[in-house]
């Protein structure tokens, strides 16, 4: 049983990998970007866990800026994804413009909150 599950897991991951490698490059870039943001956030969380969250607003803005960027990037990815039927009529350029706007607003707030 355990072997079967592990085997399943293996070819599941193989299948996942093959499926993923099929995705176009620009989506991969976005994924990479998301990864980058998420890891940065994680590092900050670790730091907080180690030394405590004294300048709480700084910590919050740091983590949230990373998470926010990641979330926005995910949104962008969803929108520009060709397979995604829901956004046929939405041009990727428009999506990118929204993405930029959203980021600018987000970081204005971050900067204000950074203290």
């Amino acid at each position, binding site marked *: 049983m355990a072997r079967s599950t592990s085997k399943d897991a293996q070819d599941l991951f193989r299948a996942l990998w093959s499926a993923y490698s099929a995705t176009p*490059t620009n989506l*991969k*870039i976005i994924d*990479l*970007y998301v*990864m*980058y*943001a998420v*890891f*940065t956030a994680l*590092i*900050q969380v*670790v*730091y907080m866990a*180690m*030394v*405590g969250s*004294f*300048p709480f607003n700084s910590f919050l803005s740091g983590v949230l800026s990373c998470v926010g960027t990641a979330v926005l990037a995910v949104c962008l990815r969803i929108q520009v994804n060709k397979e995604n039927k829901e956004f046929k009529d939405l*041009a*990727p*350029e*428009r999506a*990118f*413009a929204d993405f*930029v706007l959203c980021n*600018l607003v987000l*970081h*204005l707030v971050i*900067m*204000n909150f*950074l203290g």
Partner: protein
Amino acid sequence: MLLLPRMSSNLARLLLLLLFAFSICDAVALPGPISDRHRSAALELFAPQHGSFASLEESYEALRIFEILAVREKPDVRATTCPKVLENLVSSTPLKDLFYALKVNGILKCKVNGDIFKDIASRLKATVKDAKTLVDLYYSIGSLLLIKDQASDVDVLLADADGTFHSIKALSQSDGKWRYTDKPESSTYAAGLALEALAGVITLASSEIDQSRVNLVKNDILKLFDSIEKYDDGTFYFDEKLVGGHEHQGSISTTSSVVRGVFAFAAVTSGKINLPGDKILGLAKFFLGIGIPGDAKDLFNQIESLALLESNRISIPLILSLPASVYSLSNKDKLKVRVNTVLGSAAPPLTVKLVRAFSTVAKDSAVIQNKDLKYDQNSGHHVLDVLPDEVDVGIYVFVFEMVLHDADGEKVYATGGQIHVPIYVTGIVKVSNAEIAVLDNDLGSIETQKTLDLAGNDIVSLSANHLQKFRFSFQLTTPRGHAFKPHQAFLKLKHETKYEHIFVVGNAGKKFEIVLDFLGLVEKFYYLSGRYDIELTVGDAVMENSFLRPLGHLELDLPEAPTSKAPRLPPLAVDPYTRYGPKAEITHLFRTPEKRPPTQLSLIFLSLTLLPLIGFLVGLLRLGVNLRNFPSSAAPATYAILFHLGIAAVLVLYVLFWLKLDLFTTLKTTALLGVFLLFVGHRILSHLATTSAKLKSA
């Protein structure tokens, strides 16, 4: 047996107050005449700011005082004051300034040419004619007088002296007071001014003033003196009853104004104003009793009035003063008495006679009767060389009397009859056979008894329980061998825990004894067992060897406090003197600073945060990112570059916002950049969209 826990200080204060009270109530220490202390005070109070005084009035007062007191090292203000005087010596200056300018000039003798005096004089006369208010009359007449002294050639005589005299007299009241204007409120101060003015009128009169009017004024003066106020130490003074109307004058200025007026008037009128000498003396006492006033004005009034009293035509007060009012029997002091005038110059030849002396406790039994004091030429003192044996330690009242050698001196001088002076005769009181004992309660049998020499410092240590008694006794005898009862004879028991109990040691004859029955005191002692320090206080004003000494300690064991009514310990009384001492320093509570990580750790994590970025870049390379999609043609390319530049600019702006800008400037700038971004972004993105669409279609 009176028991006062923890009230020693209050009790002492109370007793001192009582002593004070009854010592003053039958005789008062006499103030001495003017001394050098006044001179130094004058120099302090009248210190010119950078070379000159604030006003002419003040500079007059200063100069006058320096003159009277013959102060040597007086500041030289001539150079600075004379110009002021000159600029004020114009006929248009207000009367008051003119008046004081002239007064200053009278002292400083500035160079003023006569014509100035002439037209001032003419103007003054005009004002005198039609002046209604007393103050105007006072100033103008005073000024005229001064001109008269300073410029002999100017004609200052009043043509219509009678009229002026009358107009001033018209302001007088029936009670000798005067009115400033025709308004009804009358004032003693005004009376002084009026009298001075009247005196001036008389001197300035071209023709003799009608004598009857002068006598009327004399009666006014007598009436005025009927309204004189009196302190019970024989000092007389005038006080301003009414408040309001004009500015209220204090008793000093009022009195001195009256003195000025009366003596000025007395100086110019023929015939004597028969004022009782003791009142004049009382006035002198009043001014001397002030001591050294802190206020320049008061000092001036005091000194000038004293100067007037020193040489007046009515009667010159003689001041009898004692250099010391305490005489120690132990070092055979002599009783010394000085007699001076108010300013301290020597008195005419006279004998001081000690009418009698009596103790304050036994008023009617005189210890000394009629003795003359010897006059000691070189010291200028009248001395009573030895005190008779009847004089024991204690407080006495000596009654002196001055007898002038030449009989008619009585009319010139005011000696003030019999003078009561309190004298403290002190001496060493012998403390003898003191013994301290602990005895059993029931049959007073002595358990432990110790005799101790209170003069020396030997210490006893006793122990007792609550069933026993504590007895302490000693004797006090005066040098003359009589019994002596001090004001303070306290026994203090002080527990380790600072709770102290004070007992008054009662006396029977010479023997002082106190018996503490601990059984009755258990309550009062709050059931506190343990070591009590014993302290004895014997003190009196006339006792030269007052002492406060520890007698040792007493180990007292008291029963446990019954749980039912355990008296909770009252708070310890704070020492009343610490109340005025520095308070405990306030320690402010600050928020404890949050713990911050060590910097290198933070730096490490900073570098760690860079790792994902590097990973990101590496990943990009792995994916083989390229800029093929970047527009090749010119216009879109520029737009694209501008677009990215714009975004960069906004981000930089945010950094600036974080560093120094404030929100609103940032928002404004962001809006501008936003418009720009919108434009270029729209261009480039639409271009991209069209190209991609073309690709699809193709």
